[in-house]
């Protein structure tokens, strides 16, 4: 091949850019402009109704000041972290265990268990919420099962609301972790495991000392992706508990919705949105650091 001259390179680059243009436009329209607008609105008193809806003013850091002095912000952050940690632990551990125990099992079993887990994942969030409500409500499946073995019914959605929404989210999200871990486990060479076993390691030791270190990259990536999707969960919680009772399941997205849309204070709501963005960014940076160190 002859060495390309300058003009040809430019032409080539231009061609590539044209092909990229639709993607760039899409990003600009649906991602970058909204983010810039969100940042701007969080510094205004924008409201959905009332006098402020007519006279939008720039009010500096007022929204942020209010947010940081509002005790509900702290409660929401606490709830978000609880929801996040609970969901992450549940999804990762369960996903990993299912993937681990399914490895090398007969195809028949895999083709039954796999779709069962996937069913929770392919369902839209709102359907998951309705299913779980039907399961956990006062006269729901869970209490019927308990009743059959003579355990008194529990008002799950009201006595243990956070646990209930975490379980719902774990049911919804486990399949994603399972798929990740399945493909990672398939890549762990059987030779290493066998070598370990020959050296006298039992199954548990092999798991902790050999397999987990082999798939730690997947664990980190999986955790990061799950974190970002869990931070944004709104419909599931809103449909199941509406953020209540009281504020016991009010996570940041619900708090944002209540203030911004229900309370009609869009400016304040967007400021809370920025807080969610910051929490997500911080988590991403931490995980990327961990990944890099490895």
């Amino acid at each position, binding site marked *: 091949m002859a060495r390309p001259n300058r003009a040809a390179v430019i032409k080539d680059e231009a061609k590539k850019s044209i092909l990229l243009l639709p993607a760039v436009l899409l990003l600009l*329209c649906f991602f970058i402009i909204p983010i810039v607008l969100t940042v701007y609105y969080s510094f205004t008193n924008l409201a*959905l*109704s009332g006098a402020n809806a*007519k006279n939008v003013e720039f009010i500096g850091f007022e929204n942020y000041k209010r947010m940081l002095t*509002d005790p509900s912000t702290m409660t929401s952050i606490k709830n978000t972290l609880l929801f996040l940690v609970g969901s992450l632990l549940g999804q990762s551990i369960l996903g990993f265990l299912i993937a681990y125990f399914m490895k090398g099992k007969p195809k028949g079993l895999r083709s039954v268990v796999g779709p069962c887990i996937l069913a929770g994942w392919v369902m839209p969030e709102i359907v998951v919420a309705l299913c779980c409500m039907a399961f956990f409500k006062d006269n729901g499946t869970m209490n019927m099962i308990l009743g059959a073995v003579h355990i008194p019914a529990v008002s799950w959605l009201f006595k243990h609301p956070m646990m209930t929404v975490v379980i719902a989210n774990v049911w919804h999200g486990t399949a994603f972790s399972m798929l990740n871990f399945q493909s990672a486990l398939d890549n762990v060479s059987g030779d290493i495991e066998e070598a370990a076993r020959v050296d006298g390691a039992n199954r548990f030791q092999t798991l902790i000392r050999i397999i987990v270190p082999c798939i730690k990259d997947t664990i980190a990536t999986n955790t990061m992706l799950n974190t970002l999707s869990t931070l944004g969960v709104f419909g599931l919680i809103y449909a199941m508990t509406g953020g209540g009772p009281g*504020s016991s399941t009010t996570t940041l997205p619900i708090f944002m919705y209540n203030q911004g849309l229900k309370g009609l204070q869009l400016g304040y709501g967007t400021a809370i949105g920025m807080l969610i963005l910051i929490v997500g960014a911080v988590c991403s940076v931490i995980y990327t650091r961990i990944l890099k160190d490895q």
Partner: protein
Amino acid sequence: MKMKKVMGLSLAVVMAAGLAACGGGSDKEASTGGNEKKEADSGKKTITFCFRDDGQGEDGALWKWIQNGYDTWDKKDTVELNIAPIVAQEGDYFTKVALQLADKKTCPDLVCEDTFQLPNDVSAGYLTKLDDYVKDYEDWNTSYYESMKKGVTGADGSVYGIPYCTDTRGLWYNRDILAQAGVISEGQDWEPKNWNDILDACKAVKEKCPDVVPFWCNSGVATGEATSMQTYEMLLYGTGERLLSDDDKWIVKSQGILDSLNFLQDIYTNGYGPDLSLVLNGQASNTSAREYLPEGKLAISLDGSWITGNWTDTGAAPWPEAKDVLGFASMPTSEGQDPKTITLAGGWALSIPENADAKDETFEFIKHLMDPEVYTDAVIAQGNIATRQDVAGDETYSAQPFKQIATEFLESADFRPQNDKYSTVTTSIQTMVESVVSGTSPEDAMTQYATDVARAVGDDNVTEK
């Protein structure tokens, strides 16, 4: 290589087409509220009507009123009607309406406004001044109650809606259950003198009729304004306090607030209230009115006069025996102090948004809807109190069970503050009430309320008492 080029090109085309489709789609969606397209098709104007549907669809009293009104309208050949309900919980309705009103493309021509939301939407510039319209509307000056007109008048003295219903609140009680519990004797009316009388009645019911829920009041965020008005404000106003001080500042800490919250705490910690799972969801008002009361599973319900609409032949839960089984007692003040009893009146109005396209036609339609021939049946079906004196005098109307007593309550009724911040403050009230019934101490709940309200209205606009 060629293959790659072709694929790249077709991918680009698909993406561009997708982009175009996105834009086209949203345009089309947006224009369902507007009229331009339909006008071009048929040369007719369209009135888009927006109201809250709580899930009954075409069987709902409001839907029937509008449909029936349109069918009997002499201009129906020249104007089209597009019924566009918002199916939502009450709190979400106001959000969705505000979003629709703000944009010309999605704005309806006729919207149902709760009179508490009206001042807020007026100051946002969302609603049309109706002064010029009502000037030539004869009935406006002769038939409507003055107090109802006040509820739809903005701070600038202009009229922004035509009130189509009002209501009062009180204690619905099951005579059989209260008699069985020994609170009243057979055939006697229950007349609680203070809050303690109510608690005592609840205690008696709990002891004598353990399967019955003694007391029900809207207590959650999900029931929206019903929680603020039917429950909290009925209590607060009964302590003699108001939401706003005389110099128009929001009272965020006071003995009255604490007393009201303590009453609610007493109800729930003593087990007089329903299970939280029943009362803290958006359907709670319907559950009590359509299931628990008719099934005899509820003794006392603090609720609005309109719940009778559920029990008519065409209602959601027909219950002809209601007029014999139930009584409607007025809510006493906290310690029986003057004025002895308390009630709040609210109501809804038909408004024309500023961004509406067919304003003149819409006002003509409102006039027809409010014509006694169309309106009387509708207000009976809704279970509401009429806003027109001539309709209030109608025989069928006044023969409706409980209509007389509910209308009597109206004479001494209090109203919610005509303040454009009320619709924001009310969400903080709902949060406060829900947190108390689910276990937070009244003191802590009030502190949080003070913070919330100060944030919403500004530190200069709150005060303590």
